């Protein structure tokens, strides 16, 4: 945790023209972890991608934060199933080759 690079939330707020309160709502719902250090609020640099995804879903598709949480969970499941499917296909290919 200590080695992770942090990005000041304020910087992102300026860049995306959003309020700090948006980040607090995200934290409350458990979509994002905020780090508070020396009176500044930060987000881990590798979580910026997740944050940007949240922002896109929110602004481009008008999904509310609870909906985004649901989407994240479902997308994760889809990804797991895709990996499983690829594995099953590989096995099936092997069986077919045997016949």
């Amino acid at each position, binding site marked *: 945790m200590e080695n992770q690079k942090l990005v000041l939330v304020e910087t*992102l707020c300026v860049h995306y023209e959003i309020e700090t309160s948006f980040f607090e709502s995200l934290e409350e719902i458990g979509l994002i972890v905020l780090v508070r250090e020396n009176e500044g609020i930060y987000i881990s640099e590798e979580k910026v991608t997740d944050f*940007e995804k949240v922002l896109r879903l929110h602004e481009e598709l008008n999904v509310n934060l609870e909906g985004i949480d649901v989407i994240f969970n479902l997308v994760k499941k889809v990804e797991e199933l895709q990996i499983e499917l690829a594995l099953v296909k590989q096995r099936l290919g092997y069986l077919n080759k045997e016949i």
Partner: protein
Amino acid sequence: MDFIDYYKTLGLAQTASPEEIKKAYRKLARKYHPDVNPDNKESERKFKEINEANEVLSNPENRTKYDKYGKDWKHGEDYERQQQNRRRSQGQGGARQGSSGQGFSDSDFSEYFESMFGGGGSGFRQSGRNVKYKGQDLTAELHLNLRDVYEDFPQVLDVNGNKIRVTIAAGIENGQTIKIPGKGSPGANGGPNGDLYIKIQLKNDTDFNRMGNNLHKNIELDLYTAMLGGELLTDTFDGKVKLKIAPETQNDTKVKLKGKGFPVYKKKGEFGDLILSYTITLPKNLTEKEKELFIELKTLR
């Protein structure tokens, strides 16, 4: 390059009102948005198509132009000029823009669109808002043979003109994606660079079947060796091995050679197993003499 029916793309009649266009676009965007369709090229393509349709139909000026000249775009007054512009602005190959991103690059529009409305810089991009702080993630595919990744495989990739050294660790799975942090597009306003994702596609160039860390191979055994036992020389992935065949070996018998499988990903020195299955081949075209001997065998049983 063909005419594109943007009304059809959004499932609308040419008489559709601006509200109907907006509604249709939003509905399709919810369905095909890349953030809700992980690793799905088909929906990525669809999403680009509906965005393009929306760029044209939601903008009154563009829509008028499209309705008027759309089908005769080839005769458009400034077609030639724009063709030349387009050629000039055509970009590089290599890794494509990642699916996880927004922020369209020029190449996200069809040739038809660009010849009609010009390249990316034509000024009706939605807003400056979607310039990302973190740089765009890039995704690339790397095609290797199975044999390549039996050992660590150093590789120099050319991503949009940048040479990137990577080592693909032995034992990587087919379809596995590796992330190279910070090697995507540069960020904006001091933001971090995007990441590079490399999806490994393995082609099996061997007669082993790989399942996880184990390798499987079928071995044909003639009837007599199966019945009487004997020795057999066979290939493993990295050399030959002499197998002892037990007398009365049955069809489909499986033999496990421990540690002769594929290397375990990122666990140096660890290997899976090689699993051999025996398929017994029966003799054909028996001679009279052989037939007699088989009859004798039969009566003995």
